């Protein structure tokens, strides 16, 4: 399939030999170890600390509490105000930390810290009609609410109506590498080896929190063990490690444990979503109303913008989308792969399937009939939109035309079999960046940018982009990333990393080419680029989005309620692909996370204690090797001249968007039962069969 190239990852050898060093693995002599103490109540005040036993333990260097912790400069993310007061805002919040000579001692001493609380009654239950519910003023992605025509009247008047409520659970990102930082001070200069999605961002945050000149802060992150959004904002670990290192005058390693991550590193909000669709008898939508109810902690406002994708999907003259938040005494919600889009498209694409069933219309045909000419709200042209082509291509590959739409009639032994389809979308985003490109005297090139590799293969991708611009062999290009001392760049997030970094790399390489005259002096030739103007100057004359289609086959065991997915296909229209090899892996990875979302991932809140019960990988299930069978991801050859110089659209997230709906729609086809609450675990499924 078409792509700039198809290369194995350039850091592959380091990763298969164990040489690749992640955050706290960087060798530093004399490092001490920190361990956090977490609150055991969800709301209240700390009335007393007893740290005597912990401090008496040989090898303990210090116990940090709000009483002795240094004052930090306030930043907008309340999660970073580590140990700045005695108020407790959720269960699992950091209330103290121990620093000791060894990991074992730090851990034991943390257990010996006694904290007394004046607990207050907490409120952790999300309901759509919660009295504290409000509509956020602004979110990262545009207005919170969009309304056109008269959606409610149109709904009442519609000949065919769907009105359903979908519930999705809290989900935890669970990157395999827990959040971790190794911090060291040299006078007032701070160096951290940290696991994050953007070293430039971590640097500016640390500079603010500790009131340092950003030039005195360095963030080194050559390899990251996954993030999926949870490392997109600096987390308490990086602040606390720096604070602890300063307190003991030594380098400090702080790695959260898997269990600690469930309170401290963010998660996807649970959602309750009501979708109303009104249609004519021929399936043309007259109205779309999508509302979502979600939670946020009291520490940090974050909106899971679940209704945003609905704004770009289907044509309807009357439409309304809105999401509402309730601040609860829960750990802070944050980005998880395709925030908003993943749960939102589960709801919308399930509702579309329900409509297709009511109309007796093929679900692909229903979507084709509602394909808009331009942006459904304002008619702006799409820079490129190939949803229909994805659906058609997928139908041909998957063998959709043979499908008997009758639900609940295919049985093989104990298993009911069915197939389902759902659409996918994700916005095309980009942030400004700087980069340098250098021609070396030996004929090689060096590209430098503070990008980061979460597992996306950023080094390899940027090398391919640079080589294409320079008309060089990719093997001649070395890409340096993962260090805040490199030219400043944006996050690996919002599927925008390669687009933003790639733009800067292309511009730096172009600038280099214009400087080269065939001869490279011994000291080399370097050129730099800054895309701030270019990125800010991009107008919104086009709506820029990726599209895709998911197909799934399921088998539902009628005796156990267990669902297996023997086949899944994703077809994507995401502009130009950079590295075919890694792109396929990334699409598949997203689809597998979508499989987890459909069938197993659920963070169960314990209302009595106020935090998540399922706080480890034995209870929070993610797909294992045997859960994944025949999986395929392909892409269309899409050319989009209106996105960025590479023509790429971003591929990190669209793989999860819509994947769960394809599976649950297939479950309906298999069983005739519509499940509107995720995930579809045997206890939920079996009683309905």
């Amino acid at each position, binding site marked *: 399939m078409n792509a700039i190239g198809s290369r*194995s990852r350039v850091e592959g050898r380091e990763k298969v030999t164990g040489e690749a060093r992640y955050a706290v693995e960087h060798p530093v002599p004399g490092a001490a170890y920190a361990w956090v103490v977490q609150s055991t109540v969800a709301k209240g005040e700390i009335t007393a600390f007893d740290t005597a036993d912990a401090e008496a333990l040989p*090898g303990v260097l210090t116990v940090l509490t709000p009483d002795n912790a240094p004052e930090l400069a306030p930043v907008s993310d309340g999660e970073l105000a580590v140990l700045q007061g005695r108020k407790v805002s959720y269960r699992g919040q950091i209330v103290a930390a121990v620093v000791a000579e060894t990991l074992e001692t730090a851990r034991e001493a943390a257990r010996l810290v006694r904290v007394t609380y004046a607990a207050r009654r907490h409120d952790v239950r999300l309901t759509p009609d919660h009295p504290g519910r409000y509509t956020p003023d602004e979110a990262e992605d545009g207005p919170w609410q969009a309304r056109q025509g008269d959606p409610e009247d149109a709904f009442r008047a519609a000949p065919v109506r769907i009105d359903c409520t979908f519930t999705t659970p809290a989900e935890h990102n669970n*990157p*395999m590498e827990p959040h971790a930082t190794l911090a060291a001070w040299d006078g007032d200069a701070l160096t951290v080896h940290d696991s994050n999605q953007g070293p430039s961002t971590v640097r500016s945050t640390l500079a603010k929190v500790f009131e340092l000149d950003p030039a005195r802060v360095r963030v080194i992150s050559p390899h990251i063990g996954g993030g999926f959004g949870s490392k997109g904002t600096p987390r308490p670990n990086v602040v606390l490690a720096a604070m602890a290192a300063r307190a003991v005058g030594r380098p400090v390693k702080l790695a959260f*444990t898997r269990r600690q991550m469930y309170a401290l590193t963010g998660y996807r909000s649970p959602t309750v979503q009501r979708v109303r669709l009104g249609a004519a008898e021929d399936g043309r939508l007259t109205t779309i109303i999508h509302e979502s109810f979600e939670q946020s902690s009291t520490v940090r406002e974050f909106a899971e913008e679940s209704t945003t994708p609905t704004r770009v999907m289907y044509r309807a003259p009357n439409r309304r989308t809105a999401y509402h938040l309730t601040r609860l005494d829960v750990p802070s919600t944050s980005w998880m792969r395709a925030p908003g889009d993943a749960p939102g498209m589960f709801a919308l694409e399930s509702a579309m399937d329900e409509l297709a069933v009511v109309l007796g219309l093929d679900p692909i045909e229903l979507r084709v009939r509602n394909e808009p000419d331009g942006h459904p709200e304002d008619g702006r042209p799409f820079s490129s939109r190939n949803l229909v082509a994805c659906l058609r291509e997928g139908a041909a590959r998957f063998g959709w035309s043979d499908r008997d739409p009758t639900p609940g009639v295919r049985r093989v032994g104990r298993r009911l079999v069915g197939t389902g389809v759902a659409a996918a979308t994700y916005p095309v985003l980009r942030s400004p960046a700087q980069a340098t490109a250098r021609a070396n005297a030996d004929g090689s090139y060096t590209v430098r940018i503070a990008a980061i590799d*979460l597992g996306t293969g950023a080094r390899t991708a940027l090398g391919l982009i640079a080589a294409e611009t320079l008309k060089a062999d990719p093997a001649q290009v070395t890409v340096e990333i993962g260090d805040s001392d490199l030219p400043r760049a944006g996050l690996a997030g919002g599927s925008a990393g390669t687009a933003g970094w790639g733009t800067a790399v292309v511009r730096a390489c172009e600038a280099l080419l214009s400087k080269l005259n065939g001869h490279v002096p011994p000291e080399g030739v370097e050129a730099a680029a800054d895309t701030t103007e270019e990125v800010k100057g991009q107008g919104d004359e086009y709506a820029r989005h990726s599209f895709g289609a998911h197909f799934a086959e399921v088998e539902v065991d009628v005796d156990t309620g267990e669902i297996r997915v023997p086949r899944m296909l994703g077809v994507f229209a995401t502009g130009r692909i950079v590295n075919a090899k890694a792109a396929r892996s990334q699409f*598949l*990875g997203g689809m597998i996370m979508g499989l987890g979302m459909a069938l197993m991932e659920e963070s169960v809140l314990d209302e009595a204690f106020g935090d998540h019960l399922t706080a480890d990988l034995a209870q929070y299930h993610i797909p294992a*090797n045997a859960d994944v*069978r025949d999986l395929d991801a392909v892409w269309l050859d899409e050319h989009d001249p209106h996105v960025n110089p590479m023509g790429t659209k971003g591929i990190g997230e669209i793989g999860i968007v819509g994947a769960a709906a394809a599976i649950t729609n297939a479950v309906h086809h298999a069983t005739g039962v519509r499940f509107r609450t995720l995930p579809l675990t045997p206890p939920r499924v079996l009683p309905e069969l």
Partner: protein
Amino acid sequence: MDGVDTSITLTVNGREHRLRIDVRSSLLDVLREDLGLTGSKKGCDQGQCGACTVLLDGRRANACLALAVAQDGAEVTTVEGLADGDALSPLQRAFIERDAFQCGYCTPGQLCSATGMLEEAARGWPSAVTGDLTADPDLDETEIRERMSGNLCRCGAYEGIVAAVKEARA
């Protein structure tokens, strides 16, 4: 050291180490913190993810669940010991070629696990999906998936892992 110390001997990747260790230390922490062998990863520290998988006296084991003090005299192979000098093992080569990882954090565990698994299959050990328990197991995709399911990969590189194991075995 601050807890109760003791001495053990460990042979790691063919090299013998006399170590003074804290009796509370896991084998994983001794490898990572005392020996600087950080190839073995800590994904959960409680036996649920497989990132810490090493070969312990030839069999795959979760190093986070093994108390180091109980391993006196043991032979340990970590990911750092899989290659023969500069020559990668067939599995390591196949992992790169088949894109069997993204972030790479589960990869050392996957590699040690696959190395041990191939040995188990070669000895005729059955798995939960083996049909005929008396015949030599046929390592098809279903068998590989089942036998590799103790190693979680959040990036979802399973397809590549299965392909790499098949290729390395061929």
